[in-house]
């Protein structure tokens, strides 16, 4: 029989004040199989750990129980101590007599002592049946998949690739750049968004370690940490993007014009198009919903004019597979649609636009070449009203959170407007100014002092059109004065939302979302870029609204996690996993259906259920549901559970 040592920790007075450690020591010392028992004030301290090590060596113990705080506190500490003394780490078990005993039974000292004795006895009985286990190891595919080619995804891809690791960068749109490529200037320095973005997009395109796949979406992700297989759907572009030289002749000759998504309706594009002039890759795609040839077999001009014969109307969607070790998700955000805001005109008032539309108006490469004009008639607006907190901080009708960037970009918009229209007036309706970044508060103040942006504290009740103007009905709550402005243009700082497709992708990746639909991090403070699935990392606005500096730093953070993971050739994980007694298994598949981690499958050839050990988290769900009792959890077998229960009777 195993020689077992038991160590009862006082935890200062945390345990000893409630539980009578003398009595526990006396009772446990006599428990069958206990070869050594002692107590100490702090076993987690260095001298405490040395006591444990010495006892293991001197009394040649086979296994030890530490009765102390929660295993989440010090299980690793004592398992390391046991290893130093020559034991297998799984021959060390923790009994929690602090959180689950002394802290919750402060008023019932006698019963707490008995509970401590029972809990320790149970652990001793379980420990007698513990196996010595080795960590499970698996080789790693040192290749990362980054989903989303906005500023966050590009930054993450570059950071990983610059460390010499291969990256597959996946982008849904025909070109990379994301929302940042739509912006005119960026706060707080007002540098041109395109100018700071293009060096990145070019670097992405030319990087030998980056495989850029645009106009494509993730279809399915299978496998586990270190060994994922991504199925990717490459949408039919109807243009051979290898042959295409990007000369642009097809775009020039295409007769069909439609509102451009990139310009958010304010500009037009052709049915064969590139997103924007500096796009990477700078090769067009044909939009099958608007191309007259693909719809009605009429036209076909683009094919006739293409000198390299790159236009291929027969092209189909293509599914490709990429093997990767981990994934960085950087899919970004959507904006709350103006058409859903009834009191601001449901999107029917032409001169009421959202922040991104204003960016396009303001952008040198936008539909107006950077001239700020009224969408209704093209005049220069003289009174522009900016409304912050539109449907954000609005638990009743919108979202209750504060996106945290609208104060800054509205301040920027007002400032840029004043520079282009010096005799115009910018009004900002705000609730609170939230500008806690570096140089942010100074930026807002500059707008107030130098550009004379008029900040009005209050919310606008409604907007309506009258005589070609937009009437803004608001209030200045600081004076109580009702404010009515006859505006030429109204810009709404609408709430940032998770992508409409975020939930679908979450299902494919097996990660969870928060109450709003943003991807949930493993720990809000300590694991902000890890998802709850191992090997899937989050960066940028898909995890919650944030500005460019924060997104970029999160991208770097996610990249460092990827590189840390790829630092060793093999990954190891806890060996506390499910096992299958194949002689009992009937391959009924109940375990497969009940496994929350996709760790179970049926081996169709041998007709037995198998465990994918790298995915198994040792939760025991399959053990509970197996009708034949063929599933067992290592070091927590049914026999072990029953032996614990017996002691608790």
């Amino acid at each position, binding site marked *: 029989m195993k020689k077992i040592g038991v160590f009862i920790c006082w935890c200062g007075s945390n345990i000893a004040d409630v539980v009578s450690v003398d009595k526990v020591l006396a009772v446990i010392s006599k428990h069958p199989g206990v070869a050594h028992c002692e107590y100490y004030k702090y076993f987690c301290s260095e001298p405490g750990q040395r006591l444990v090590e010495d006892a293991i060596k001197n009394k040649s113990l086979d296994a030890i129980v530490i009765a102390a705080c929660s295993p989440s506190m010090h299980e690793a500490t004592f398992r390391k101590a046991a290893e130093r003394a020559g034991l297998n780490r799984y021959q060390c078990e923790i009994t929690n007599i602090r959180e689950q005993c002394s802290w919750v039974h402060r008023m019932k000292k006698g019963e707490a002592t008995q509970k401590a004795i029972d809990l320790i006895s149970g652990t001793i009985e379980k420990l007698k049946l513990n196996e010595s286990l080795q960590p499970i190891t698996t080789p790693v595919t040192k290749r990362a998949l980054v989903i989303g080619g906005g500023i966050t995804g590009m930054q993450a891809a570059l950071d990983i690739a610059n460390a010499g690791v291969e990256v597959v960068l996946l982008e849904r749109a025909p070109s990379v750049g994301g929302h940042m490529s739509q912006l005119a200037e960026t706060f707080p320095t007002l540098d041109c968004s395109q100018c700071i973005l293009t060096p990145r997009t070019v670097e992405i395109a030319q990087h030998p370690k980056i495989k850029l796949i645009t106009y494509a979406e993730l279809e399915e992700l299978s496998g586990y940490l270190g060994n994922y297989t991504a199925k990717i759907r490459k949408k039919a572009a109807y243009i051979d993007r290898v042959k295409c030289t990007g000369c642009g002749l097809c775009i020039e000759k295409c007769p069909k014009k439609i509102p451009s998504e990139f310009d958010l309706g304010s500009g037009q594009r052709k049915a064969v198009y590139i997103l924007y002039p500096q796009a990477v890759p700078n090769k067009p795609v044909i939009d099958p919903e608007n191309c007259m040839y693909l719809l009605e077999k009429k036209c076909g001009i683009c094919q006739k004019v293409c000198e390299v014969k790159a236009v291929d109307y027969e092209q189909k969607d293509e599914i490709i597979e990429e093997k990767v070790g981990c994934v960085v998700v950087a899919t970004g955000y959507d904006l709350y649609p103006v058409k859903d805001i009834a*009191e601001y005109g449901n999107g029917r008032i032409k001169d009421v636009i959202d922040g991104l539309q204003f960016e396009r108006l303001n952008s040198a490469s936008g539909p107006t070449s950077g001239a700020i004009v009224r969408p209704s008639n093209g005049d220069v607006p003289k009174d522009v009203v900016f409304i912050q*907190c539109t449907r954000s*901080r*609005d*638990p*009743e*009708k*919108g979202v209750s959170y504060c996106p945290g960037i609208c104060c800054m970009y509205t301040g920027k918009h007002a400032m840029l407007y004043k520079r282009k229209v010096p005799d115009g007036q910018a009004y900002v309706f705000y*609730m609170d100014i939230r500008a806690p970044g570096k140089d942010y508060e100074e930026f807002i103040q500059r707008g107030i002092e130098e550009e004379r942006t008029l900040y009005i*504290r*209050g*919310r*606008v*009740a*409604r907007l309506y059109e009258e005589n070609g103007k937009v009437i803004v*009905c*608001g*209030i*200045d*709550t600081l004076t*109580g004065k*009702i*404010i009515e402005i006859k505006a030429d243009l109204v810009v709404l700082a609408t709430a940032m939302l998770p992508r409409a497709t975020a939930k679908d992708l979450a299902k494919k990746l097996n990660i969870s979302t928060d109450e709003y639909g943003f991807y949930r991090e493993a720990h809000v403070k300590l694991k902000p870029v890890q998802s709850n699935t191992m090997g899937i990392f989050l960066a940028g606005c898909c995890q919650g609204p944030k500005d460019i500096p924060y997104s970029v730093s999160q991208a770097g953070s996610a990249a460092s996690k990827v590189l840390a993971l790829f630092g060793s050739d093999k990954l190891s994980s806890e060996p506390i996993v499910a096992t299958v007694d194949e002689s009992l298994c009937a391959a009924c598949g109940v375990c497969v259906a009940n496994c929350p981690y996709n760790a179970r499958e049926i081996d169709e050839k041998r007709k037995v259920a198998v465990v994918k050990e790298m995915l198994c988290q040792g939760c025991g769900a399959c053990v509970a549901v197996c009708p034949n009792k063929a599933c067992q959890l290592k070091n927590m077998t049914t026999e072990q559970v029953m032996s614990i229960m017996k002691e608790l009777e």
Partner: protein
Amino acid sequence: MESILDIVNKKADTRVERCYQCGKCASSCPMIKFFDVPPYKIIRLITIGAKDSALSASAIWLCTSCYACMTRCPNDINITKVMDALKEINLQEKAACHEKDILIFHKIFLGEIARLGRINEFRFVGKFKIKALKLFQDLALGLKMFKKGKFVFKAEKINGISGLRKLIR
């Protein structure tokens, strides 16, 4: 003692403390020109426990219960009901009321409904003028209405008045 905040919350079945002073109630309000204290400040007075100031505001009597504020409130505060609650507390505690005429108007209106089940203009206006001591105001308008047959002297009850009275009670 229960705070004014708790009392109003209970009476109006709402949570006044959720207000973050955005002012959308005031900018929505059709009566705001006549209010001495805008709705969001009434809400604030309740939150900080300034009971007397809240109860003595004319605004609580001037509110026409159009519900525009409540419809637009981002925090789902039932401001109209809050105004009603304050009126109720004002009466219970016999607090200062600077809009006596409106109070008289409400009382006569409800009294007439309880008696007849409908409003007879002549009776109603007459009673109000006598109570409010405003006998000669709007005399010209009154004559005009009389000529057009808007004033009917015979006051008729509705059918089933006893049922209505039960409801009111």
